[in-house]
């Protein structure tokens, strides 16, 4: 992040006062929105999680009962473990494939722009359309994917119709739409100064050595950033699964992810207190994981030493 570029020229006191006024005036629309749609609801949802509320009768204070019910709810654990499964499979798969593609594209290959477009476009396809498309492609009996698998002699799984294959199918669709990560990596790779590679070559580094000692260390901040954001995003996967399974998270709850269960509790059963508790538990899990990543970042994320101006 760039440092704040603010002029240090001395200005009159009245200018400073006027600036304070303009600053707060300028951020007012966002600040109002933040208080009304972010901070307020965060606090309210914590409060709500200690109540029983169905939107008809007034909320009733029930202390920690919603949390107790939640931790005794088998579907809570099902939805949590399904979500963790998808996070654990989709995040590394899409990061690794994006990184490999970006590496290949960074070699000044001809047609780079065309390849980049090809890899990126699926990520801008709306979730509902992408779900409809993959529903067709993944049809177990006559679908394109299984047709392809059979033609090379591979077994053709039941994908979204089979309990064991539904989650991998979802991950497949998610990886298909992960071109954005590739673009981020490609931009990061292109920012690495050529001089560093030349210096490594003089030191006798081969292709592998350059990758290991120049590319990877310099890419760790970018990788860290995508890791944090993908984990937060994947924990909240919803639309694709909702459409693919008609809102059910089937077959047999095998794709019942956390947000689908939240949706069901809130907008099918109207258990608002219970859902608020669910949302807070997820919030705490995501927050803990994010903090853990920030706390352990120094172990593997390489930050360039701060260069002081004029030093």
């Amino acid at each position: 992040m760039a440092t704040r570029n603010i002029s240090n020229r001395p200005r009159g006191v009245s200018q400073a006062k006027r600036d304070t006024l303009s600053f707060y005036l300028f951020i007012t629309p966002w600040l109002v929105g933040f208080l009304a749609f972010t901070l307020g609801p965060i606090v309210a949802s914590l409060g709500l999680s200690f109540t029983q509320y169905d939107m008809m009768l007034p909320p009733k204070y029930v202390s920690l009962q919603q949390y107790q019910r939640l931790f005794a709810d088998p579907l809570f654990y099902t939805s949590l473990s399904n979500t963790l499964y998808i996070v654990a499979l989709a995040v590394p798969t899409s990061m690794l494939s994006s990184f490999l593609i970006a590496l290949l594209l960074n070699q000044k290959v001809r047609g780079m722009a065309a390849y980049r477009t090809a890899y990126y476009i699926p990520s801008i396809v709306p979730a509902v359309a992408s779900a409809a498309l993959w529903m067709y492609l993944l049809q177990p009996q006559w679908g394109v994917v299984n047709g392809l698998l059979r033609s090379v002699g591979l077994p053709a799984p039941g994908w979204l119709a089979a309990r064991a294959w539904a989650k991998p199918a979802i991950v497949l669709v998610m990886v298909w739409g992960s071109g954005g990560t590739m673009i981020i990596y490609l931009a990061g790779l292109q920012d690495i100064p050529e001089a560093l590679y030349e210096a490594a070559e003089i030191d006798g580094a081969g292709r592998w050595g350059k990758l290991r000692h120049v590319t990877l260390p310099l890419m760790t901040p970018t990788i860290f950033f995508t890791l944090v954001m993908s984990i937060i995003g994947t924990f909240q996967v919803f639309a694709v699964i909702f459409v693919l399974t008609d809102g059910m998270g089937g077959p047999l709850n095998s794709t019942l992810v956390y947000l689908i269960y939240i949706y069901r509790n809130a907008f099918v059963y109207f258990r608002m207190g219970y859902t608020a508790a669910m949302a807070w538990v997820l919030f705490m899990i995501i927050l803990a994981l994010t903090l853990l990543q920030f706390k352990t970042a120094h172990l593997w994320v390489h930050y360039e030493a701060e260069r002081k101006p004029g030093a």
Partner: protein
Amino acid sequence: MTTATHRGWANLKVLRRLGAHLLLLIGASFFVLPLVFLVSTSLKSSRQIAKYPPELIPSPWIWRNYSDVFIYAPFQRYFVNTLRIVVPSLVGAAITSSLAAYAFARIRAPGSDLIFVVLLSTMMLPGVVTLIPTYIIFSKIGWVGTFRPLVIPTLAGSPFFIFLLRQFFMTIPMDLEDAALIDGCGRFRIWLSIMMPLAMPALATVSVFAFMGAWNDYMGPLIYLASRAQYTLSLGLQVFVGSHGSEWGMLMAASTMMVLPVIVLFFFAQKSFIQGITMTGIKG
């Protein structure tokens, strides 16, 4: 000798390049072929779709699936409804976010650093934690079943857009602004007549992402819209999937119609897409 080794090296280089292209092509087919099937299936007859193994090229080419979509669902209405959400959300992106971004980039005020940190941390906030109370509030004030819950919050601007625009404003030289300040020009005039015109590329970027966000949004319309007359494209398409799930030609035609504007937008604003993703990590 030397020429032979030289030739050997050149061959190796050619091989390596070919290998890279081969890998890239295999990878690209995983990303592109599904979309080719999307369009080609939308142009096939139901008899050809039922064939196994599946064929890639439609024969004969038929356009009926596209007209059939409009018989079974009012897609033109879904389109208009989507625009009623998309267009106002551009205002929030371009105007409100840019005002705040300018303040964060250029104006020093007590508390401004702290507020900026708060803004940054909301970028990582899981949206689900605000979902329930927001829904309850909108429901109590009678907004459920209207477009307001999908439009009004976007008018406040988004932390992603504010951050992106701030980064852009910081790259604009101070000179122009300093001269204007000395001439007694107010901050609002500086923002409007100096910064906004210079920020057009960045404004295009945030507009593109605001458009994408509203166009692709699924959960918002699912929760807040009540009647079919209000459905957006993503909601309309989902209902279509549910009720015509076996009529693949029509389903693919409907999906193509939803995807096409986004892809056209990408080809017109490629730079904005790339810049937006690399600066903030929004992935469309």
